[in-house]
């Protein structure tokens, strides 16, 4: 399967990165990792890019690594449309103090606009 992973700077993105790397090493999917430009996140685009580079090389997973500029949702969906991907993976879903699951606006945008099946890693 040809998989595209979109990474913002959140902890959920780190979880999605780790799980996707694990699955890729196990299954042997083709993987492209797109690092998004998103304001107000725990990590900058550059930090996230380096983190992805490090985890991919530690796991000895051979993947395409890209930086996407501009609005994170639009640039990711646009990139997905340009390639021939079977699945788009994103991390999302934070837990409120009450225990409620909350999905952010980037998650919603990708779920509604992506041309492919979307996997939401929680």
């Amino acid at each position, binding site marked *: 399967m040809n998989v595209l992973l979109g990474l913002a700077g959140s902890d959920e993105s780190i979880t999605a990165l780790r799980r996707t790397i694990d699955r890729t090493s196990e299954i042997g999917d083709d993987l492209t990792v797109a690092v998004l430009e998103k304001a107000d996140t725990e990590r900058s685009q550059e930090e996230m890019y380096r983190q992805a580079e490090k985890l991919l090389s530690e796991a000895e997973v051979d993947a395409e690594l890209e930086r996407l500029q501009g609005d994170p949702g639009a640039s990711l969906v646009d990139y997905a449309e340009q390639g021939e991907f079977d699945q788009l993976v994103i991390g999302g879903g934070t837990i*409120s*103090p*009450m*225990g*409620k*699951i*909350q*999905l*952010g*606006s980037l*998650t*919603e945008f990708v779920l509604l606009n992506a041309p492919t099946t979307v996997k939401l890693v929680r």
Partner: protein
Amino acid sequence: MPDRVYPDGTSGPFPAPPTTDTDQSGREIEYRVVEKFAGEALEDTVEMYVEFDPTDRAQGIPPTGEERIRNWLEAIAESSVNVVARHGEDVVGHAVLVPDVDDPAAVGDVGEIEWELAIFVLQAYQESGIGTQLLKHLLGHADELGIRHVWLTVERWNTPAIALYERVGFEPTGTESFEQEMGILLE
């Protein structure tokens, strides 16, 4: 200071528990504060959630299955503020505020922090005014404690719930996604 945006004006006053009144189906309902959310009070509420129809779950809560329900309630029990609606011996509604801080034990002034609200009413007791009363009594009790900033999220398509929150003074805040965030400022 609160992170979220709250309405400019305050809402209230709200009635404080305990109150007993008759719902729209003629049932006598008592609204009561749960001072310590443990023992029998906790068990009665667990029992209500075991009976709860999962179609009315919201954003993953309440969880299903007695053990998961008990774990959830115990996790929020310590520092939460709870009001229940009782019909005879049974808990038929539960409204709760949970402090939105990492270390609830370190909170000095409850008026300085934000509180997340949730409310659930057992299906057989819905659409009879109990939800509105329960919500008002929780806010009345919160006001007595000095709580000022209360927020919640509600699924955007849940228009009856949004209408209920708006009736008591909640206003939409924050960015729109699957969940609508709403806030109220108490006096």
